[in-house]
Every structure is written in structure tokens, then in C-alpha cells.
């Protein structure tokens, strides 16, 4: 599919269930363990603790190609994947890669004993951002250009189920789309929908 826009540096935030009351402190040793054990394909380097800032990035594991975090930006907790390095392929490839990475991270965190089951994927909502204002300024033109790509991607992700898209329209913010599926999905279901 030829596209008028290049979607690089895709960020995905998978929102935790609304009732989640999560102590973020255990994430620090968890993320150090991820670095030590090299659990992901990206090279992970460091842990950054921003629990002290209001509605901030929470606790992050910083990588060379990408960062992972349990993020509280805008006051909603979720697992975020921030792709930093460029990726080859199509926009669909890049969207798929980022969402898969975020899902895999959330899946791993859901099974962490030290979190005692407090951090659960909400099943319906996620946010997708393009972290590059030169490629994707938050304008009507970008929204129009990205729409076919997003529709194709979320059609696949939700297996044809209904979903609603809402755009962030504040022009100073990153290009951001919030997605809410009509029904709840498990992480495994979403990964299966994305295929290998």
C-alpha cells in the first residue's frame, strides 16, 4: 500500500484496567531484571524512576532502539512502548511491531509475581502516537493521511470487531489517536490477531 505519510517512531500505550491500583516501586527491580536477562530484542540500558512527577512517565526501562515504561501520562496508567530507532518496511509493519512489543511487555508484567496481579490490561483501550513532529505534525492533514493506515491496522488487530477512534486535536501535542474496541480482548487474542 502506497502511503502519503511515513509512520516512524510509533508509540503505543495499552491502558491498564480502570480499577488498577498499582505500586510502581516493584517495577524497578523488574526492569533491571529485563536488562540483565535481555528479555527483548531491543538492547535495554538503564532504568529511570519518575514516580515523583505528577502524571509522568512513571518507571521506564531505557533502551537503544526503544523504551518501555509503565506510564502515567495524563493520569491514566498503562504500558507504553516508545520506538526510537527507525524501522524499515511499511507503515503496517511498523504499527504491528510497536503494538506487538507493547503487548509482549504487558503480558510479561501481568505475570510478574511482585506486582501481585495488580497491573492488568484493560482489554479495550490503547493510544497510538507518532513521536516525530516533522514526520507527523498533529494537523488535519496528518490525520487524513494516516486514517487509511489506522483503519487497516485496527481492523486487523481487533479481528473485524467494532472500535472507535478519537484524535487528539491540540496542535502542540504529538499526533495521537485513542482507540476503544467495542469488546474486551485479552493480550493473547490481540497477539493472535496480529499473527507472526
Amino acid at each position: 500500500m502506497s502511503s502519503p505519510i511515513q509512520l516512524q517512531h510509533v508509540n503505543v500505550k495499552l491502558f491498564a484496567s480502570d480499577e488498577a491500583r498499582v505500586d510502581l516501586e516493584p517495577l524497578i527491580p523488574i526492569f533491571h531484571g529485563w536488562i540483565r536477562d535481555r528479555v527483548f530484542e531491543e538492547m535495554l540500558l538503564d532504568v529511570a524512576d519518575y514516580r515523583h512527577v505528577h502524571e509522568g512517565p512513571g518507571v521506564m526501562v531505557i533502551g537503544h532502539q526503544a523504551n518501555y515504561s509503565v506510564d502515567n501520562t495524563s493520569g491514566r496508567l498503562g504500558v507504553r512502548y516508545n520506538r526510537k530507532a527507525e524501522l524499515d518496511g511499511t507503515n503496517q509493519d511498523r504499527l504491528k511491531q510497536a503494538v506487538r512489543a507493547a503487548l509482549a511487555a504487558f503480558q510479561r508484567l501481568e505475570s510478574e509475581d511482585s506486582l501481585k496481579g495488580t497491573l492488568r490490561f484493560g482489554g479495550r483501550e490503547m493510544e497510538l502516537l507518532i513521536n516525530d513532529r516533522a514526520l507527523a505534525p498533529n494537523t488535519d492533514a496528518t490525520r487524513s493521511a494516516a486514517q487509511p493506515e489506522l483503519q487497516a491496522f485496527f481492523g486487523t488487530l481487533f479481528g473485524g470487531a467494532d472500535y472507535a477512534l478519537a484524535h487528539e486535536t491540540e496542535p502542540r501535542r504529538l499526533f495521537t489517536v485513542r482507540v476503544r474496541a467495542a469488546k474486551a480482548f485479552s493480550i493473547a487474542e490481540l497477539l493472535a490477531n496480529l499473527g507472526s
Partner: protein
Amino acid sequence: MKSSNALWKEQLAAKIPGNLAGEIDGYETDIALRKQGKMDERVFAETRLRRGTYGQRYDNGQRYDGSKFQEMNYPSGELTKGPGTMWDAPGMQRIKIPGGGLNASQLETMAELAEEYSDDIAHVTTRQDFQLHYIHIDDTPALMRRLAATGITTREACGNSVRNVTACPYAGVCQDEVFDVTPYSHALAQFLLGHPDCQSFGRKFKPAFSGCAQHACGLTSLHDIGFIAVTRNQNGIEKRGFQTFVGGGLGAVPYMAKLFDDFVPVEEILPLTQSVARVFARLGEKKNRSRARIKFLVQDLGIEKFKELVLQERKTLTPDPRWTDFVDAASKFEEAPLKPGSDRGSHGSEEGFARWLKTNTRSQKQPGYVTVTVALPLGDITANQLRALADIVRRFTKETIRTTVEQNFAVRWVSQRDLPAMYEALEAVGLGDPGAGAIVDIVTCPGTDTCKLGISSSRGLAGELHKRLAEKSFELDESVQHLHIKISGCFNSCGQHHVADLGFYGVSRKVAGFAVPHFQVVLGGEWEHNGGSYGLPVAAIPSKNIPQVVTRLTERYVAGRREGETFKDFVKRVGKVELKKVLEDLAKPPTDPTDRSLFSDWGDPREYTLGDMGVGECAGEVVSSVEFDLAGAEREVFDAQVALEAGQIEKAGRMAYQSMVHAAKALVKINRQSISDNPDEIIGEFRTQYYDTQKFWDPYAGGKFANYLFEAQQKSSQPYTADSSRYLIDEAQLFIDAAHACYNKIGTAVGA
């Protein structure tokens, strides 16, 4: 790294001043040349440093994971951006903000850069700069272009150059100032930026301006050159000028700036600084970085000789119209408010607002206006908060906002009646915390979080203290609420621990055969009077016990304080010997051998270091002996401090020197048990065993601490002065800290 890096050059071409555009283009070329192997790594390192682009922790391609070191196989392979600094390793970008002055658009740009290139956080520093972390060097030209398009340069934010020119953030609105120093600090910043006379320093050069002598906001005492506003009546006309100081600086051993002239007319501050710069460039140390700051030159020459050389240099300068072009405009400089001044009106009695009003607002000299301090925890602010702050300063002011040396923002010219609405707006985005400038408003450097030099986790400790104190800060005794806590991750003083009531700097010690993160507790410093006096270390305490140190010392202060007595005066009266006793048990290892809590740092669960345990019986015996001897040396340097405070200057100097000799002997004895007590023999052997072999060398400071000993030996036959004793005590403590670190390394080697 970013796909769009090339796009910004074209998009912003029309918005970037020509000189800055050319500067950034040149830097981009240097990056390309380095990648092609056509530029030496050392040259490239200085090139990027002069643009504020630093290395960061783990950039040597290795990381300790808690049990072993792991190699980081970066995609660019062996390509480096400086000696031992891998190309792909994340770095820190420092961004100069002269006088801390910003506008709303610049705040928004900072937000964009934090999101796109960093980790969503911008960090305000103790010198009114911003820092962004985890930046890839390939992104830096685009980042610099985006800053330049809003009028900000990173040029000379690091390297051996003139650093950010800082100024009191309340200049122009402070009730106690002599006059507004803002336009003078700006003129100096503009004049010195890229000035040919400032390109061949051996080290950095930091200027600062203050509008008064009594407050702390300008911190002129601890700067290479400091200006305090004064006026003088000449023939019935009030003339503006500056009391001018030179040769101050913190660093490992802090120096109080010396008075150069009690009145330098405003027309003379630029040429005088130029002359100082020339003398510094010509005579300052170049090879030995640890002696290259101007404070050493002033100390070595003496202030009178230094002044003579500067005034001679002044006569040789070719007149430059920029020296005085700004003067007329400066005398008329005034910021404008957005709204008319007003009385406070009726405020609600909401507790949060009342607390915030008490600690975060100060009345301006202009009736009807206040300056609001926005307190940032650990100096951090998110991208969303920066945008919200931009909206707030547009709504309530004419974008009059400055960063402060306490890592906060000062929003000036707020009409008093707007305070409730402003508080509400700040509170909505998490920027309405009370406690600005209070005990809860802890200043800290990055420490082991991101700094290559960090020894202990200053931010981790600050976060823990902030959490504990915020819960009860308004229940604390009033006298404690206004104490200042400042923390540095190492001896380099970026957290300004020397001028705190309760200062801490990171060191390591060995406990039960393992390295344990510690902090030296520094008492006796003064924040007021532009950093009026420097504290000295009292005891090294494990990191995890520092919150108890704060509790005990503050409780002792509340219980034993005399009416109106400051903490500094209380420390002086009660004495460090007595206060050290209060902390003694906290310095000891845990009684439960299975308690591992001390062996990791705040916010970092990894075991503090690797392989430090000395194994083998012989090594074990030697290790015990070394520890014992180093502890003795540490007691001796503490006693030197006590002697100094008692006015026994000669005794203090001798004891400090002796403590260094004894620490050296402790190490020498590992391989030569029979060493005599002769200092010359000990030092000679120390040089052979530890200096020449570089075993004593600090990874970043090199032979700096050993040189303290050698210099002390050379001067040991001379009488000590109050200054030289004071410096030697600091140097002796650092030498002993380095001896501990060296011994840790030796323990590793023995055990390996």
C-alpha cells in the same frame, strides 16, 4: 536516530539566525567527519562538549547488572564520540538559559524536545540550565536547530568555556535588591559567547550576578567571577556598579571568591571580564585539570598579584563598542506586567492554597504584584507540564518566567488578585506543591542515575527524603521547615552540598568485605549571603541511613536551639564532635549479617559493586589492617576540622597533612609492612606503588587526589594559613575517600 533529522534543517532555515545556523552546520560536519574516521575522538569530544553534548553513565559499553558486567553491543560498533565513549550510548544535552530567562514558546520547544529526543522529562539544573537525558548524538543537530529557532543556543554549555551566565531570578522584582542585574548579565553573556579570548581556557569559567549581598539567589561566592550590584554617589549622581569577586568555586575543594574590587562601574564589567579571561587563558593551568580552575590561579598568585595582572591586561585591550553599547538601555530596562497590580482580595481558606501562598509566593517591590515559585521535585518537569506552564505564564503574565538555582521556576509579575486562579491552574497539572525553598525542596545533581561520575544515588536519596518530608513538612518545627538540603552524587559538588544546612555527597566504603554506598554528611554551610560559608564533612554514613541522619540532626536542632539561632550557628556552638556522636551508630554495619539493605542504593536494587569482597586469609588480614588505618586517618582529619574551628590553624593544617600520610601508609603497608613513619619514605613508596602504577587513579579525576598529597608534602614546611588549612582539610578528606576506593579495587584484585 530520528527519521526526520534532515527535515528540520530545511523547515527551520528561515527561523535560525545565520551565526547559529553556521555553527550547527559546522557541528554536523564534525559528526560526519568523526563517523568517517577523519576526526580524532579527542578533538570531537571537545567539539561536542562545547555544544553541551555530554556523555552519560554506561557509555563505555559496559553495564554492571548486579552480579556481573555485561557488554553492550551497540549497532555502530567500535565507533566512539570520545575516549571510551561509545557512539550510540545515550548522552545528556545541556541547554544554556542565560539568567534563567525564558518565554512561553521556549517552554513549548523544551516540551517537544523532551518528548521526541529524551524521556519526556526536562531537568532544571543548579545553574539555571536545562538538561535532557538519553539523547542520541545523531539527533543533536536537529535538537539544536529547534532550540536555535526559538533563540536558544547550547554553545559553550560545557567544555573549557564560559558557561551559563547565571543571575538572581528575582532581579528587577526583589524588594531588597540594589538594582536589576538582568540587562548586565545578558550583556555579559552575549559578549562572552564565542569570544576569541575565551577559547583557550584550561577549564570552565562560570560568571554569576546578584542584586544584593544578603540573599543566596546569585551565589556569587562560589563562582569564577561574581558581580553584586552596588551604587555609589559620584558628584551627587548615583552611579551603578558591581562589587566584583573572582576565584570562587565548589568542586572537590570549595574556594570562597575573593574580592577583586568593591566598585566596578557598569561600563567596565565587560572589559574587566575580558581581561580576567585573558589572564586566565594565559596563566591558568592547562595540563593538570584538577588545578586548572581560576580559583587555583588566584590562590597561587594571591588576589593582589592577580588583580595587578588583570589591570595591566585591561590597558592592552582594543576598545570594543559592545563594552558600553548596552549601558543606557540597561539603566532603563524594565519588564512589563500583563495586568494591573491589585490587592490580594478575599482568598478562600483552603489549606493547600494557604500553604502554597506561604512558601511559594513573595511580594515584589512593585505594589500589587508577587513572584510565584513553581517547585519542581528533583528539578524535573514533564512535557505536558511544560506546555501547561507555558499557558499559565501567558494567561497571567507577559511570559516573565525564569529558572532558579534551586531547580525551580520563578513566575514574575503575577497580579495578587490572580493568585487563587493561578494556584488552581498550577495545581491542576501537579505544579502547585507548596514548600518552595523549604526543607522539602531538595536540590540534587543527577548522581548515579545518569552521571558518569556518580558514586551514590543522590536522586534516589533526594526522592526518598522528599517523600518522607512532604508527608509531614508542615508539622515540622518552623525552624526546621526552612533548612536547606542539598545532595551531590560525588565530591564534585554539582548539588552544591557545601552551602546547605544539611549537605551530603556520595562516597563508597567497605563494610564486611563489600562496597557500600555512603554519603558524607556536610555541616556548617550557609546558603544565604550568596553562599556565605562552606560546610565540612563530619562523617560518612551508609546511604540507607541518611534519612535517620536528617531526623536526628533536625530533632537535635529543635531541642537545643537558642532563640533565633540558625542551623549553621547551632552547628558551630554545639560543635561537630558532639553532632558526630549523634550519628556514630548510624555509621556502623548492620548487626544482623543477613541484612543486605545497606548493600544497594536508593532506587537501585542491584548490589552496589561487583567483586569487592577480599577473599583469602592473608588478604583478609591485610584488609582489616587497612580498614583500621583508614578509619584512623579519617578520625584525624575530623580532628583537624575541630582544631580549625577552634582557631588552631597551624595544628589543623598539620593534622590534615598527617591524616593523608597515614592514609597513604595504610595502603603502602599492604605490600610493605615494614614501612617506617617517615612521611617522605611513605610518600615515596606510595608514589611508586600507587601513583606511578595508576592504581590510585580515579577513573575520571585521574591522579588528582594523589597530587593533593604530593602538594601537601611540598608545602609541609611552610606555615599554614586559615585558607590553606581549610583547603587541606577538604583535600585530605578526598584523599582518604580515594584511599578507600583504591583499597576496594585492591580487594577485588586480591579476591579475583
